């Protein structure tokens, strides 16, 4: 007997919530980035689960695009973090309040 899609969706919801909590509680921008990857993966998992249930491969194509965008996002984000570290010699999101009101 196969596992229904609802269980995959519940697992994806749990992973997404853990990612949100990680983004809020951590102060290290690298760990915040990794929590964002966690959230993207949870969304991907629900795409694949829905595609499996509907019998359509379109969900998998969307996941492919999400992976490409995530790769670009990680490259640019890490470059920004390295540039900030060069400027400040510190790495905490609480220090970065220049553009905050």
């Amino acid at each position, binding site marked *: 007997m196969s596992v229904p899609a609802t269980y995959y969706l519940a697992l994806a919801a749990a992973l997404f919530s853990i990612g949100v*909590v990680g983004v809020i509680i951590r102060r290290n921008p690298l760990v915040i980035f990794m929590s964002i990857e966690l959230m993207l993966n949870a969304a991907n998992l629900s795409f694949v689960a829905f595609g499996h249930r509907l019998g359509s491969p379109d969900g998998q194509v969307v996941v492919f695009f999400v992976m490409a965008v995530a790769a670009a996002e990680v490259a640019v984000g890490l470059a920004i973090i390295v540039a900030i570290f060069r400027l400040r010699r510190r790495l905490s999101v609480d220090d970065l309040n220049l553009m905050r009101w």
Partner: protein
Amino acid sequence: MEWVAFVIISLIALGSALGLILKRNAIHGALFLVANLGSIAALYLMLGAEFLAAAQVIVYAGAIMVLFVFAIMVLIPGKEETGPDPRRVWRLLALPLGTALLLVLAVMAVTGRSPAAGRPPVGGNVETIGRLLFTDYLFPFELTSVLLLAAMVGVLLLARRRA
């Protein structure tokens, strides 16, 4: 059999996700994230998405995590999260907020009207996706290449040493 595999894999996924956000050391977090991505690749295999499982291991667990580990090695973070937390009250709100979000999402997943189940796709997985990528999704596919090129140029610009 499939249930046993699902329970074991989802326990690994949840445990490694919790490890990522609870361990103080960033490199431990990176290793936990690799375990998490691998378990999600296994779930893709169970859902019949062989191409995505391979792409997940190659792109995420391979390329992206190598980039993360490089950044952690270069920056050597970890000293930031010692010391007193200036925003402790706000961060304590994270747990009830996260629980509320989990409840909302889980209720939606369980009680939502689910669409009628379709028939299983015919033909191989990789073949189907390749055909879709080069017919229906040709324009987004080409846009992806432009996006990756723009990201590459942007990273070179950002990482350049100011002379």
